[in-house]
Structure formats: structure tokens, C-alpha cells
């Protein structure tokens, strides 16, 4: 296995636009994600997990330290690093199909090829028959499927996912998790899989999906622990095995105190 993402001693400090206060979102992050690895990042509110993802996406610049993707320094967003946003960020004035074709079109791919890509992906995420609907006409789960298809249309080399299922109901979330694993290649050979950085609040979700779970602490955001999830793939759809429970419990213990603090702060 080779490195896909390498984060070297990255720190990020914000100046709060409201108070003018300096907020240290991340301090001294070192992290390597390998080519076929699914990494989930969990932590209490305000631990900087979404900031970390935005840094890798190139949407933010680190205050210090460096981020490499395939050996090249990340300096701006690019289609080889696909991002899935929590609130979908679909273009409300475009139909499902035009949303999915946005990336290929931005990269000047011919109309016929775009059409072929979008039709295949719309079928893959189960949105057949909804091609001409606008995002406002879709349910939360369907919007996230559309956003997933839109991200995949660029064939990104890495998937960066920022709490993608946080806004959908529990049953939809469980279905989307399974679909995500299927699309990623949970049941296929390891070489067909893409590296994934998956930010989530859900510890069970992290354990169910990931090969490795990073636990971030807050104030400043830093990596507190790394937990290897050595459960078999493909992951069975029923999730409450003793092994899973033990992992969830272990991670929860790491987060619990700070999560309570985070709630008290708000």
C-alpha cells in the first residue's frame, strides 16, 4: 500500500469574525491515509474535524504544516479530491442530472460522454426516474444520493465526506451507509477501493464503515487516539456483534468527557 494523503504537522488558527479572538482549531496534526483505506474521524463538537477535511480539500489553507496528496502539496480545491457536504450543497437551479453533470461539464467533457456518466451514476445511486427533478423536490436521502453521484462523476481519487448522513433520518442513514460501502468496494478486492476520509458524529457509523477511526480531542483539536477496526469485509448488515460493541464503547470512553464539556460550552 502507498500513501495517498499525508498531513505533516498541520495547525490551523482562525480569527473569529465575531469576537476577533484567535481560535486554535487544530494543532500539530500528523496523519497518513493509505491508498485503499477508509478512515473515519470522530470527536466532540468543536474538535476541528470538519476543518481538517476542508484543509485536505484545499478549501482552507493550514496556518502551518503541509498537506500532500499523491506526493503533491495541496494548495487549492481540485476535482481529484471529491467532497461530499453535510448539507448536500446541490445547485438548487439545476436538475438532478445537471447537478451530476456539473463536474464533467466544468472539466469540458463532451455532452454525450457526460450524459453516459450521469445516467450510469444516477442508476447506481438509485435515482432513476428523478433525473429531471430539482433538489427541492427530493427527500433528504435522495439529495445526498444525488450529491454522491455528483461527486463520483469526476471519478475522484479520494473521497472526502463531511458528516454526509447527519441530516437524514436513522433508517435512511443506515441504508445510505450500506450503499456507500457497496459503492466504495467493501465486497470487492482491496485494490478497487478509494481512500476515504469520513467525518462523523456517529461512533457506530464510524466503526461500521471504517478501517481505522481517528479520535480527535478539542481545544486545541488534536489526534487523541487511533483505533484499528479489524472487522471482516464485507461488513455484515447486522451491526450489534460483541466485537463492534466493544469498539464503540472504547471510542465513546475517549470522547465522553470532552463531549460533555462541548455541550456545556454551547
Amino acid at each position, binding site marked *: 500500500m502507498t500513501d495517498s494523503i499525508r498531513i505533516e504537522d498541520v495547525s490551523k488558527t482562525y480569527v473569529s469574525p465575531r469576537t476577533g479572538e484567535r481560535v486554535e482549531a487544530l494543532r500539530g496534526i500528523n496523519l497518513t491515509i493509505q491508498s485503499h483505506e477508509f478512515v473515519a474521524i470522530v470527536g466532540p463538537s468543536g474538535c476541528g474535524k470538519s476543518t481538517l477535511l476542508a484543509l485536505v480539500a484545499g478549501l482552507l489553507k493550514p496556518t502551518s504544516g503541509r498537506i500532500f496528496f499523491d506526493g503533491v502539496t495541496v494548495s487549492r480545491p481540485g476535482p481529484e*479530491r471529491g467532497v461530499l457536504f453535510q448539507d448536500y*450543497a446541490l*445547485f*438548487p*437551479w439545476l436538475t438532478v442530472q445537471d447537478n451530476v453533470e*456539473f*463536474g464533467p461539464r*466544468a472539466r469540458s467533457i463532451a455532452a454525450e460522454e457526460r450524459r453516459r456518466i450521469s445516467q450510469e451514476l444516477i442508476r447506481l445511486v438509485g435515482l432513476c426516474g428523478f433525473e429531471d427533478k430539482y433538489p*427541492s423536490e427530493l427527500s433528504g436521502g435522495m439529495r445526498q444520493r444525488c450529491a454522491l453521484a455528483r461527486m463520483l462523476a*469526476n471519478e475522484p481519487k479520494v473521497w472526502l465526506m463531511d458528516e454526509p448522513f447527519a441530516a437524514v433520518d436513522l433508517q435512511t442513514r443506515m441504508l445510505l451507509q450500506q450503499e456507500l460501502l457497496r459503492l466504495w468496494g467493501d465486497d470487492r478486492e482491496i485494490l478497487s477501493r478509494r481512500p476515504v476520509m469520513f467525518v462523523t458524529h456517529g461512533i457506530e457509523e464510524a466503526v461500521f464503515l471504517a478501517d481505522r477511526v481517528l479520535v480527535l480531542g478539542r481545544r486545541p483539536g488534536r489526534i487523541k487516539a487511533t483505533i484499528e477496526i479489524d472487522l471482516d469485509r464485507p461488513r455484515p448488515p447486522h451491526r450489534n456483534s460483541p466485537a463492534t460493541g466493544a469498539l464503540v464503547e472504547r471510542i465513546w470512553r475517549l470522547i465522553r468527557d470532552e463531549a460533555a464539556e462541548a455541550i456545556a460550552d454551547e
Partner: protein
Amino acid sequence: MPRWVTRIAVLAGVILAWEMGVRLYGNPQRFPYPSAVATALVRDLGSGRLVVAVVQSLSRVLLAFFFAAATGIVVGVAIAVFRPLDRALSPIIDSLRSIAPIVWIPMAVLWFGITGRAAIFIVAYAAVFPIILNTSEAVRRLDRRLFDAALTLGAGPATLVVRVILRGAMPTIIVGARVAMGFAWASIIAAELAMGIKLGEGAQISIGLGQLMVNTLYVERDLNGLVGYMLTIGLIAILIDLVMRQFHRLALPAGAIP
């Protein structure tokens, strides 16, 4: 009784009372009346000079509107995207905006002479502010996540501006354009009225509706013709608004905006 019957009855009553009032008690030298207005309108339509003047005024409005839209959209997007530019330009824009367009007429005449270009300047000035304000407000209200999404999907600056910023802001920009077009039509008449016509001084200017009115009032002393033009101006204002409303509808496909 259906509502429209009442309306038409009231309208007919007012016109009749007006006609009778002027004929029985009024001085037709000072007060126009409906039947004479109708006759004057038919005469001016037949002679073609009303149509020529309308085309002249409308083409000035369209040219000025084009300048105003191009400038207003560029400035509006720029101040919405770059905060320092907003801080620098907003006081200037707000000060200029509070100076009514017709106040600029002396200056416009000084710069451009009594020409169509002076009128175009006034109209563009009137039209540019609603476009700047609506554009900048619309762009500011766009969800910044959409910019992030576009960039991570491989959009360059041009794609971001055209397919996300302008497209997302378009419905509100068109609302601004609609207001701007109303201002433009009001101020072309004002500008043409104020500049009037100067005969025999070599100041050649093609006659728009406003100038036709000045000519009708001071040279021909034809009150009824004047009222005919006033009605025409109102009618064109309504038509312009109808057209702009259609554009607005085109920018809002069904279900596109929640």
C-alpha cells in the same frame, strides 16, 4: 354583477363627465378632452411621427439599459465577492444613488450637448443603481457552500462566476432589472422633456417622445395631442413591465427555487 362591468361603467362615467365638463364649462384652450384626445392620437399614429418618436425613445432606453446592466452586474458581483472593494465603493455608490437622475441633466448637457447621448447618460444613471444593489444583495445571499462545491468539482473562475454566481443570483438580478427598466423609461421622458428641442442652432437631435411633447406644447399648442402622448407613455410602461415579468419567469423554472 361581475366586477369588470362595474369597472368599465365607472371608467365610462369618468370619461363622459370629463368630456361634458370641458365642453359645457371649460376652456378647450387650457383643458384637453377625451374625444379630441382620441382624434389627435389617430392623427399622430397615421402620420407616423408618434411611432418614430416611440422607437427613438425606446432605442435610447435599450442602449442605456444595456450599459447599465453590464456595469451594474459587474460592479454588483465585485462588491459582493470582495469585501474591501465593498467597503471602499459603497459610500460612493450610496451618495450617488441619492442624487436623482434628472439633477444630472445640466452636467450631461455640458458633457454631451443637447444630444441623444446626454439622454442616454441620464437613463443609464437611473437604471444602474437598482441593478448594482439587487446583484450584490443576491450574490451575498448565495450559499457559500455552493462556491465550495463548484471548486471541488473542478470549476475554474469563469465557470464559478457564470454557472454559479450569476446563475444563482439571476432571479434577483432580473427583479433589479425590472425596477431599473421602470426608472429608465420614466427618466428618458424626463431627460427628453428637459432638453427639449433647440431649433435653428445647429443642435441636431432626433425627436423622442419627450421632445415631441415639448414641441406639441410650445410650438403646436396642441393639448389633446399631449395627453395622447401621456397615455402612450403609460401604455409602454405597462408593456415593458410585462416583458420584464416574462424574463423573470424564464429565470425561475418550476420547482427550481424552494
